[in-house]
């Protein structure tokens, strides 16, 4: 880990909040990038390699076969910008059969005014391997007018499993465009957890997942839109392989003048595919907007696709139930919102969990 006290001083607190542990307790490896500088790229296990993608491309010729293969550089103006003007990003390679016990942590941090941070990340989980990557993206408190564009390509080989937990903690003046593509081979499993609790100026992303035969993709998303935040978050899942399945669950809370668009698209293309979208929204303000757009597309007769979407306010009956057990109105509302946002994430760092709880407590005051 970098031993620079001055740097530690200013970013430590912010990156702790996104789950990055400088002490590296219970972590299998770390990648830390601040603006355009790589501060840590280190693995604690032989079975894992962690590098920045610029060096990785130089080191491994074969990496070309994965470069821009899950995401097209021509997708939009943001991917084009990353293609032309890339500022590192992480390369995580997990060797075949490795069952990695502790998560790998990564943090992409923006510290300077008007920064454009354009990263290109690659994760490759080889056959039969299992790993959890926790990545936190954050900005120094008070930074204005910054851009974060993150291209992520993930390759999950036969029978491999990747759990990818992403925490976004930006700021009210940050513009964010992640572009993600995930390719899951036969019997592979991809579990995505995405949490965005803090205000952000403008966030739009819609990771695309391609499922092979017997592959599984699970998405859990928690959005807490407040102030003037604009969030547009979705996931697109192609069930290309026979017997592939997916479940997409999202919980969205919108308050103040925020706007949250929550999308989900499942495209079923092969026999015995199964997919379900669950999208629930909780409105805490008359000025906020939640727009839920679940979409299903079957291209085979042997499809089992379904969705449920519900948007509403906190039910008075639920509040009064908790009040009749001794909580006041505010406490009751915050317990309900906490329960609403409570999705089960394995190995979530304690620090992070506390941060989420704290965030809810603070933001519920005065509702």
């Amino acid at each position: 880990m970098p031993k620079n006290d001055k740097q530690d001083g200013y970013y430590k607190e912010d990156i702790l909040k996104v789950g990055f542990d400088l002490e590296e307790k219970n972590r299998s490896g770390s990648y830390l990038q601040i603006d355009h500088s790589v501060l840590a790229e280190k693995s604690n296990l032989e079975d894992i390699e962690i590098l920045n993608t610029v060096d990785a491309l130089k080191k491994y010729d074969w990496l070309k076969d994965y470069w821009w293969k899950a995401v097209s550089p021509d997708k939009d103006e943001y991917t084009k910008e990353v293609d032309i003007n890339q500022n590192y990003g992480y390369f995580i390679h997990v060797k075949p059969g490795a069952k990695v016990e502790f998560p790998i942590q990564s943090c992409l941090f923006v510290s300077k005014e008007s920064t454009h941070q354009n990263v290109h990340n690659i994760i490759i989980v080889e056959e039969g391997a299992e790993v959890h990557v926790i990545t936190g993206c954050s900005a120094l408190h008070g930074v204005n007018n910054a851009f974060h564009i993150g291209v992520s390509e993930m390759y999950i080989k036969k029978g491999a499993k990747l759990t990818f937990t992403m925490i976004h903690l930006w700021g009210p003046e940050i513009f964010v465009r992640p572009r993600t593509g995930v390719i899951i081979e036969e019997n592979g499993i991809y579990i995505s957890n995405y949490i965005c609790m803090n205000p952000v100026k403008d966030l739009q992303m819609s990771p695309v997942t391609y499922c092979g035969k017997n592959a599984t993709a699970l998405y859990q998303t928690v959005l807490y839109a407040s102030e003037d935040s604009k969030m547009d978050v979705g996931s697109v899942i192609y069930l290309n392989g026979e017997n592939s399945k997916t479940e997409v669950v999202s919980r969205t809370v919108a308050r103040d003048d925020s706007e949250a668009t929550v999308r989900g698209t499942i495209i079923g293309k092969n026999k015995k595919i199964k997919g379900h979208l669950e999208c629930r929204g909780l409105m805490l303000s008359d000025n906020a907007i939640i727009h839920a757009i679940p979409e299903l597309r079957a291209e085979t007769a042997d499809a089992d696709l379904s969705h449920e979407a519900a948007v509403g306010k906190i039910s008075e009956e639920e509040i009064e139930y908790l009040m009749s057990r001794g909580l006041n109105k505010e406490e009751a509302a915050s317990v309900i919102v906490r329960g609403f946002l409570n999705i089960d994430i394995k190995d979530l760092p304690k620090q992070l969990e506390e941060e989420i709880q704290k965030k809810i407590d603070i933001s519920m005051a005065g509702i």
Partner: protein
Amino acid sequence: MVIKLKYSLEIRNLAVDVDGQHVLKDVNLMIEKGETHVLLGPNGSGKTTLLLSILGLSRYKVVRGEIIFKGRNIVDLPTDERVKMGIGIAFQNPPIIRGISLNTMLNVCMGKKTTEITDDAVKLAKELNFSEDFLTRDVNYGFSGGEIKRSEIMQLIAQQPDFIMFDEPDSGVDIENMELIGKIIGKLLERDLIPSRRKKMGLIITHLATILDYINADRAHVMLKGKIACSGYPKEILDGIRKNGYEKCIRTCQEQ
């Protein structure tokens, strides 16, 4: 000078509207320290309305009268403050809250600010014939009728109120669980103590008499069309209703 507040529940001339409907007309009721009363009456007569008015839920608008608990008129207090004064209830139809486990409810009842499963909760689950796994389920979600009753009572044990209301704790409960529930309610209301030692007060709505085999209540009231039409010894009133039905029982009762 120290004013000794009366440890009792007294309802005077209570009239309550629900969504613009006059449901309770003129209810008078007095429950003294250590007493447990039974509330009988046909469907739709206003029993649940009375309990939820005592609890102070927002839909129940008191248009007249007083509810005096421990010497204080509580009609203007929000529910949570009434609960903090020592009022508790087992609901007839509690809502499902997704994302909130039964365990979280127990912690709320015990005033614990944690979501973890405590030893106390495990003990309670055992006492109510629940597995530990049951504690992690979303409260009331997919609970069977009998499980709802036991879950409500479990929360009350965790809460330990001084005045406890039960809205049909015995309906939909099988024989074995009836005995369990009967005994636990009896204990909650200190019916196992000699009368002079009892402090807790209770009000139980029931359509069945079985529960009274376990809780020898002090008094019974029959509610009819938003009024308490008659009161008396539980056994006599129950026998009267069984033999002659509500209407006739009330007529004879009022003639006396």
